[in-house]
């Protein structure tokens, strides 16, 4: 995905930061163990957030040490591989592959060459992941096809294309059978998906216009966009996410999740809206040689 969903380091307690990093590293390791060396290259903060959400609330944080994928000479604390982390790894691979495919098709032959190549390399991993998560695989394919259709129609709406992407993310949480929790999780992921899609559209506004591509923000508000209106609707989605999150139990992961919702997302949103995001998005929350 896009890496918009990250915590604000300064406001995290040390132990919560450790938990976050161990989840990130644990997810990386789960991807490597299940899918080989290539898959962890696509690991990002958004998937880490998904892994935090999918971990069972009652599960305690007991890190173990494992070798880092980026630098095998060092060992790092990592979350132990558990079914929640494995599910997050599977879904990350499915989503990554479909997004690469999508990108390859969108960008035409030459510019899309890298994405096509990566999609080919990732295909065996994708096949395995799709077998493990057939329903999610189907959902992602359907939603991206639907999104494609809407984009081809050049639909002048924010909500409709965002809805399609939001449904995709909503499907990422397995049902627990507990009605209230499932509903809250669905609302949270729906608005997370909506927020990510709209923020990405805002982020790509200039580039899409230059390339003559469809952009929902331009289609709705004109080529200049409307920062005020975007801020309002993004804020509102975040508020609905927070409201839903407050109704769920996340155990020891709550402080990190709360930090991401109340500090990380607003700051990233502000950076995208004022245009400073491009310079900082590739910076890491931590350096590798720790």
């Amino acid at each position, binding site marked *: 995905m896009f890496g918009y969903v*990250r915590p*604000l*380091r*300064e*406001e995290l307690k040390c132990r919560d930061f450790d938990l976050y990093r161990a989840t990130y590293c644990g997810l990386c390791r789960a991807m490597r163990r299940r899918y080989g060396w290539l898959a962890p290259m696509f690991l990002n903060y958004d998937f880490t957030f998904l892994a935090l959400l999918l971990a069972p609330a009652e599960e305690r944080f007991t890190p173990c040490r494992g070798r880092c994928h980026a630098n095998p000479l060092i060992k790092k604390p990592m979350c132990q591989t558990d079914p929640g982390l494995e599910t997050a790894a599977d879904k990350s691979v499915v989503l990554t592959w479909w997004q690469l495919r999508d990108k390859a098709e969108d960008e035409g032959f030459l510019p899309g060459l890298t994405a096509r190549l990566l999609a080919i390399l990732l295909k065996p991993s994708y096949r395995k992941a799709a077998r493990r998560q057939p329903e999610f695989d189907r959902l992602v394919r359907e939603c991206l096809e639907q999104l494609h259709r809407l984009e081809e129609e050049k639909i002048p*709406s*924010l*909500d*409709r294309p965002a*809805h399609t992407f*939001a449904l995709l993310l909503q499907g990422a949480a397995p049902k627990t059978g507990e009605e*209230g929790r499932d*509903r*809250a999780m669905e*609302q949270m992921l*729906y*608005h997370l998906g*909506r927020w990510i899609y709209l923020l990405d559209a805002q982020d790509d506004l200039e580039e899409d216009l230059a390339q003559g591509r469809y952009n929902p923000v331009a289609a*709705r508000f004109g080529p200049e966009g409307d920062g005020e*209106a975007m*801020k*309002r*609707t993004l*804020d*509102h*989605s975040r*508020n*609905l996410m*927070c*409201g*839903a999150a*407050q*109704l769920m139990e996340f155990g020891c992961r709550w402080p990190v999740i*709360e930090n991401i919702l*109340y*500090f*990380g997302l*607003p*700051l*990233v949103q*502000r*950076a995208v809206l*004022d245009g*400073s995001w491009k310079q*900082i998005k590739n*910076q*890491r*929350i*931590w*350096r590798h040689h*720790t």
Partner: protein
Amino acid sequence: MRDPYSVLGVSPDASDQEIKKAYRELARKYHPDNYVNNPLADLAEEKMKEVNEAYEAIQRQRSGGGSGGGYQYQSSSSSYSNAGSGYQQSYGGANPTFARVRSMINGGDLNGAERLLQEVPQKNGEWYFLMGSIAYRRGWLDEAMQNYNLAVQMDPGNMEYRQALAMMQQGGAVYRPYGGGGGMDSLDCCTTMLCLNCLCGGCN
């Protein structure tokens, strides 16, 4: 019933003050005002009830089995309890179709409500308000806003429409931890760039 102390997230030997503080914070979190028109309003109401009961139980225990009394959010919460779940309240409605649409929205049948609404030939303020409400329930916040806007334009005197629009304009209501000020607002003292450094930089 769960242990009232764990509901409030305090230890059984917490002082009365601590319990009151924990209770107030939770009551603020699950307050119906934070879940107006939210499809999850019923869950918040349940939580609120649980918290109220836990607080009362502790009060009873501590006063030696006497009556609860003391500080209560209960009264204000019950007076709000319609706000979250009901579009129907205060509205007899001139048009019986609109009344049906409202009850379908409350029941969660959004597609049915939309179909029914599409069949109404005359589009007045209420029509747009209900369209907006359907969009809102779906999470289509931009379309909800557009429809509420039209509703207010057509019927500027209607408080229900104006409240709905005002809620959209402030980006919805939400509980903010870290005191009343809210997470982000407290960061406004530093420049954006500084904050972004906090966001991404640093190492250990």
